[in-house]
């Protein structure tokens, strides 16, 4: 198990090194325009040159890269070129919002998906068909469209939820719940559909295994049979949950935009539009770390559930 863990961690770390380095090279090649963007349309060449020097983007790319790595080594992610905010504190506050919505969505959608998938696999027949149709519809509905419908219907017309904004849990638990409900619903519908289908398929596959027939023949109660089935069906389902988590992280961009949530996705798109390189680098680092961590956790979980994976 230790060798398995070391192998997976090594792979994750290499991704964590390569992706931000490539991003740095891609972004800094275009960083000279940031000074012009900050100063606006009437900036003179002298002003632009002075601002470029102040930002440090007039130096050779290699020098900038070494400088950035040096900063990172002491935990300094720099400051936003556009809001002057330390990138570290920006990421902390933004990641809180994004992860709240994404984790909320994954938790709710996973619970629902497992319930629906297992029910469909066990009951089959009309229930299975109905749940499959629902899943397909859920999968087909574009998340952004659903988000807009939710805003229009439940926020603007019925005034049941706030149309925009995020309220921290510490400020008001009730308002926090209200502020994340619609974004979570908008994100989870597609996830429920996808994971439920996978769970259903995996459970049906396992149900057809010989050992399940043997368990039943030995007279085990149904709930114990289902427990065995679930343990073996969980591995493929977990992989799908992990992929869904990463997909939902990307999907958070549109939800943050529609609901004006100050999350990582919004920070990333704004920074990309403005050419705010320190923020883009910070977001890429955090996102890469999250993806690596999620994959690592899922790999370990699958390894624990299925010893064959560890051996391979």
């Amino acid at each position, binding site marked *: 198990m230790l060798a398995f863990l070391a192998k997976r961690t090594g792979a994750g770390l290499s991704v964590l090194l390569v992706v931000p380095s490539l991003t740095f090279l891609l972004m800094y090649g275009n960083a000279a*325009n940031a000074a*012009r963007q900050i100063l*606006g349309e009437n900036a*003179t060449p002298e002003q632009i040159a002075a601002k470029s020097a102040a930002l440090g983007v007039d130096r050779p790319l290699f020098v900038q890269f070494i400088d950035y790595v040096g900063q990172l080594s002491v935990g300094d992610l720099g400051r936003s070129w556009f809001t002057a905010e330390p990138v570290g504190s920006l990421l902390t506050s933004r990641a809180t919002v994004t992860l709240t919505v994404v984790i909320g969505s994954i938790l709710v959608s996973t619970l629902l998906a497992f319930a629906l998938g297992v029910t469909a696999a066990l009951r089959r027949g009309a229930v299975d068909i109905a749940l499959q149709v629902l899943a397909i519809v859920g999968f087909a509905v574009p998340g952004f469209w659903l988000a807009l419908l939710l805003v229009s219907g439940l926020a603007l017309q019925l005034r049941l939820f706030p*149309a*925009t904004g995020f309220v921290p849990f510490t400020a008001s638990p009730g308002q926090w719940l209200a502020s994340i409900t619609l974004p979570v619903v908008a994100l989870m519908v597609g996830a429920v559909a996808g994971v439920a289908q996978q769970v259903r398929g995996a459970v049906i596959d396992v149900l057809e295994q010989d050992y399940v027939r043997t368990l039943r023949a030995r007279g085990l109660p149904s709930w114990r049979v289902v427990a065995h089935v679930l343990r073996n069906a969980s591995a493929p389902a977990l992989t799908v949950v992990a992929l869904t988590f990463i997909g939902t992280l990307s999907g958070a961009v549109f939800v943050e935009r*529609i609901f*004006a949530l*100050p999350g990582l996705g919004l920070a990333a798109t704004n920074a990309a539009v403005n050419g705010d390189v320190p923020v883009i680098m910070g977001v890429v680092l955090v996102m890469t770390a999250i993806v690596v961590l999620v994959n690592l956790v899922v790999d370990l979980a699958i390894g624990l559930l299925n010893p064959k994976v560890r051996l391979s």
Partner: protein
Amino acid sequence: MHIRTVAVALAAGVTMSVGGCAGTEPQSAGGAATSTLTLGSIIAPQTFDPAGVGDANFVPYAQAAYDSLILRKPDGTYAPMLATDWKLAADNTSITLNLRPNVTFSDGTPFDAEAAKANLEHFHEGTGPLSSELGLLDSVKVVDADTVTLTYASPDPDILYNLSDAAGRMASPAALKNPQSLATNPVGSGPYVLDTAATVQGSTYTFTARQQYWNSGLQKFGKVVFKIFPDEVSLLNALQSRQVDAANLTGADNRKAATAAGIKHLTPDTGISWTGTIFYDRTGSIVPALGDKRVRRAIAMSFNVPQIRRALMADTGVPNAQVFRQSSPGYDEALNSAYAYDVAAAKKLMAEAGHAAGFDLTLPINANTTPAAMENYKNSLGALGIRVKFDNLGTIPQYFAGLQSGKYAMSPAIFGAGPTDWKVINNYLVEKATWNPLHTTDPELAKLIKSYPAAAEKDHAKIIGEINRFLVDNVWFDPWLFLEEQYFVAGPVSVTLQKDQNIPSIYNYAPAGE
């Protein structure tokens, strides 16, 4: 500023009060003590360092935290603020300011002449977007504890404007020593103090009323919250659901939706931004034909502005042919018909100039240029035989860099008309102006420009009028329309528009009924 997301003309003295909604906390009997003003915007503050603050959307953020030396009233006239009075030299080369005593910054540091000097020098040395406001400053002399004299290297007719704007905002001299901290945590003498615990940078900025502020007349609310939105659609949703009290909307569809939802708005009546075409090559160094003003005029006459307004601008915009704003003393309504749409007359001008067969022209565009806008150029210029090739320069900063490189003969444009005539002159007309990339000059124009800075104010209208006529006669620019915006007010607040500002000053809001 960046390509203007805003282009509003807001006339002085237009006030609106709207009542009854859920977005703003109920007022106490005392009004300001408990009421909250929540403003929405799609532009977040870039920095709270006074030397780095921009204009337009950035103004209210800065005004919440900082007082300026001079107050610019809603009608654009000047009034005392941190300077109680001043004496401006007749030739605009110096100003002596008497400063208000007993004022402190929010960190307890007293405001005095040394503090003013430190701020002015900090701004002068800065690299912010408005650093040119003190570009001509030569020295700041502390006369006594409450008096400073600013001396300029050459006449600056915008001294009062600049000291009522970014250049005049005063921060604690102690805070100036730590610009990184000042960038996110303003320390001013203004009516409000940033509540950092209730602030999420780039998303929500919460200011609370400063205790014992020296001018309670400018402090109308207990709390001012700025909410930043990723786009106008979510901002519109926030207005509709009364999560914000007021915001400006630039998109025609969003404005229609807001109006349909019953949200009241203030109607702009002065243009401060325009869209149209700039001719850079007025001597024919890139495209020889453009050196002939008859060709430039023919091109200007080939654009069907009413149709452009309908098809490309969603029926918004005020037809205009001048680069000076409508409130400029040199603005002349009669000049707006100078390039009236007339293809037959335009073809005749082309023939007279010896270009009846047309010529090849490369037009720079950017990633945001719509196919409809490209068709407009292709069809309008094509009617004169001009064969257009487009050169996509990419993002807006890349586009601006390309335009200023001196490679292009003309380009589409959306530009601010400038809050003062002197700024228009410096941004567009002088030989080294940013928007004169081929450094065109003319003896007649140069003489007029030279006479302006030291001239008495009573002579400004005549000089600007002559400059304006020169530009129109010689077809240096081809503005089509002043852009329109509307300022929407959903909450129970009263708002007074500010002359030549797209966003009202923070002092111009009050709880409804006050």
